[in-house]
């Protein structure tokens, strides 16, 4: 289950839904504020509903006010950037380019993409946070990747020295691996 959460998290980055800003958020989370990331993201959903609704209304007008559209999208893009919503941010940039070019069709088309990416991201994040809550706060409070590195170093040293002594090291390796993973999980 721990690994599943880590894999889901990794896929969000690998597939380009999130960028390093999300990691910055994770780094601000600690035991005194164990749900910080989810709190920020929830604020983002709330604000987004408002921004997207305003944009919808503005795009329905017969004659588009590109200045206003750009300004509204700037707000939404800012929030998206702040939580690391990479694909959403990219569509927002496209939208603003169309605004600058005063291209109404382009704006309307891109706005559909903005909403689509937002909806996809939201679903994925909601699933991710739900999973994280099930495994418990310690596993996701800090970046998990950093904790596995430390036990690995002494492991390699041991392997090297064991090889030199030509001892039967397979059992020892398995024991060390087991200890390393356990210490990584519980520390």
């Amino acid at each position, binding site marked *: 289950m721990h690994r599943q959460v880590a894999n889901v998290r990794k896929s969000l980055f690998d597939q380009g839904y999130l960028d390093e*800003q999300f990691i*910055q*958020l994770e*780094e*601000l989370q600690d035991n005194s*504020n164990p749900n*910080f990331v989810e*709190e*920020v993201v929830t*604020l*983002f959903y*709330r*604000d987004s509903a408002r921004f997207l609704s305003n944009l919808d209304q503005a795009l329905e007008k017969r004659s588009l006010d590109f200045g206003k559209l750009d300004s509204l999208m*700037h*707000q939404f*893009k*800012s*929030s998206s*950037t*702040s*939580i690391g919503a990479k694909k959403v941010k990219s569509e927002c940039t496209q939208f603003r380019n169309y605004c600058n070019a005063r291209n109404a069709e382009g704006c309307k088309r891109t706005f559909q993409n903005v909403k689509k990416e937002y909806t996809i991201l939201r679903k994925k994040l909601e699933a991710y946070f739900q999973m994280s809550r099930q495994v418990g706060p310690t596993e996701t409070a800090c970046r998990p990747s950093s904790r596995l590195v430390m036990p690995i170093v002494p492991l390699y040293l041991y392997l090297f020295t064991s090889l030199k002594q030509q001892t039967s090291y397979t059992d020892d390796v398995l024991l060390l691996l087991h200890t390393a993973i356990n210490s990584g999980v519980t520390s």
Partner: protein
Amino acid sequence: MATTTINPPELHVLAVDDSNVDRKLIQKLLQISSFKVTVVESGSSALQYLGLDEETSCHRFNDLKVNLIITDYSMPGMTGFELLKKIKNSSALRQIPVVIMSSENILTRIDRCFEEGAEDYLLKPVKLSDLRRLKDSILKTGSQTQTRKRKHKNDESPNFSYHDRTPSPPSSPQQSQTKRARL
């Protein structure tokens, strides 16, 4: 033998941002950086907090000493730039360093802010490292010297980079390339 530990004084920051998400973020970033934080959502609220009457520009005394103001640039009503100007035009408040935050890397905007007396211009999203650097700078030099360091982001940057703010004509593109600010 007695030892005296002198702790650096806790700086009180007033953060201004109309975005709920960004307000929560900057508050956390500042707290982790060991600032005492007050957050408001508009320039008007900021001036009210600072005791400056918006209309008369009169300052009423208050003892909520603010050591630093950090404000978003793009805000409805009063922009961060307008807030900066009002503060720098107030004899009571002008010595408080004002930092601008913006998601937009626009040189003319950056220049204008520094010309108006901004202490620094941070590109959003603001990072812990930005605040660490800012805090060191504020503690070391106070508000006497203006810091010239700016961050450069590749993904949203124009073709040319920042140039040093020396009283010389604007750098040519070739010069700018070599003076590219560190990431």
